[in-house]
């Protein structure tokens, strides 16, 4: 009986179908799966507030038109200053929460940076009333067809873009902004801008 067993299962190396070959294949598969997991796990986590955007590093799409208070706005006319382009809606609670932060940022920026808002799926009359009640004197553009939001790839309010003095998009911020966060972003962009 023992002699027959040795003939069926020789012990010389991982031949096809031997347990050792199966082990090698299973081990190889496990390594491949782990490499796949490592690849995905080491990508930038999406939970960060600074989100990826194909626009970052490119010239910001032009925006021009009349703000809800009647003043003319042209994004390229603001070159030389940082611009925080903020997409918002009055019905969006995070937008309501970030409003005082934007107001403080605009006050503290003292001409070095400007805030420009774009209405995302909301009524301009309601927006005017919102600004009267909560303050803020930056230009607010209506976007009735959603074209501006599309040009910037906005998925839902609030979303903001930091645009450098040369008109290039520096960052996309998904969710509420804070005065502190925006100030830090501008400071970081300034040091990068100065070093280039």
């Amino acid at each position, binding site marked *: 009986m023992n002699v027959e067993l040795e003939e069926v299962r020789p012990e010389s190396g991982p031949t096809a179908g031997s*347990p050792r070959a199966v082990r090698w294949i299973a081990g190889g598969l496990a390594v491949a799966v782990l490499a796949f997991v490592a690849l995905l796990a080491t990508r930038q986590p999406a939970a960060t507030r600074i989100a990826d955007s194909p626009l970052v590093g490119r010239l910001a799409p032009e925006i021009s038109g009349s703000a809800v208070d009647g003043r003319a706005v042209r994004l390229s006319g603001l070159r030389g200053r940082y611009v925080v382009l903020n997409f918002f809606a009055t019905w969006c609670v995070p937008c309501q929460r970030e409003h005082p932060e934007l107001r403080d940022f605009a006050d503290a920026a003292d001409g070095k940076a400007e805030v420009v808002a774009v209405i995302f799926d909301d009524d301009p009359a309601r927006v005017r009333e919102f600004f009267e009640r909560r303050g803020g004197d930056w230009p607010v553009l209506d976007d009735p067809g959603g074209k501006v939001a599309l040009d910037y790839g906005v998925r839902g309010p609030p979303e903001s873009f930091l645009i450098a003095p040369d008109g290039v998009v520096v960052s996309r911020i998904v969710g509420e902004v804070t005065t502190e966060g925006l100030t830090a972003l501008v400071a970081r962009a300034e040091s990068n801008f100065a070093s280039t």
Partner: protein
Amino acid sequence: MSVRRLAWVALGMVATVTFAFAVLNGGSTPETPAARSERLAAGIRCPTCQGLSAAESDAKAASAVRAEITRRVVEGQSDAEIRQALVDRYGRGILLTPEGQGVAALVWAVPVVVVVVAGAALALRLRGAPKVGDVGVRSRPTLVKRAALAGVVIAAAVGAGTVVARTAGERLPGESATGSVDLGPAQLLIEARRRLEQGDAVEALRLYDRVLEQDRAHPEALAYRGWLVRLAGQTQEGLDLVDTAIAADPEYADARLFKGVMLLEDLNQPAAAAEELRRFLDLAPESEFAAQARASLAQAEAAT
């Protein structure tokens, strides 16, 4: 040639001819610009919706995407150029069908590799299996080792799947699973509003619950959940939720309106109701619900 081999050759020829006919015939019908726009929109994700294409959704962002596609179709741009234009704005996540490039190519490549490797492993295993007449005695330690190895591989696969689900995909801040499945509160709220406008209260309620899973103190989700619960006949539970919404954001107008109506119509407290309704009108005088609030306020003042 044996009959069996002849049958396989005939089957292969029939399959080849059928495939070629389908491909050639499918490409012969000219596509109208409208049909082309519709086809392209069906492959683009609605930017603000949950699991819908730009062709299916009536959200404003989807309408903007459709208009952009149509404009580019009319300009004579190719399918690839139109898709690329949208990818240049939203990223590759805007495409409903993953492309065979970069990391996204793994979506297509991994299943193929797994099938090929598994097939090869099976073939090797069968080749090496004891034939009829062989003495197929296998020692117990070998079986135990194989079972342990299988357990390790399964555990690694389950762990890998969990880690991939938690790390991959297009997501917004605060979200924990893959993007098109779990959306951020802003997108969930947009979808919930749309559902409410369509009269689908059950789905709206489910969406508000998902917002609250991510942010337990979200005023809008709390207030609207409270209102829907009240409409289902559970006034006290609804009122508790609306009170929580007010505590989270005293300036959230809709919560004041809901509380005022509940106090007036369900709890017969017109004085308290009038106070809430006045507060609502102070906060949102131009709301779409302002006329309704004024009527309820007049009713409450008449009853005090």
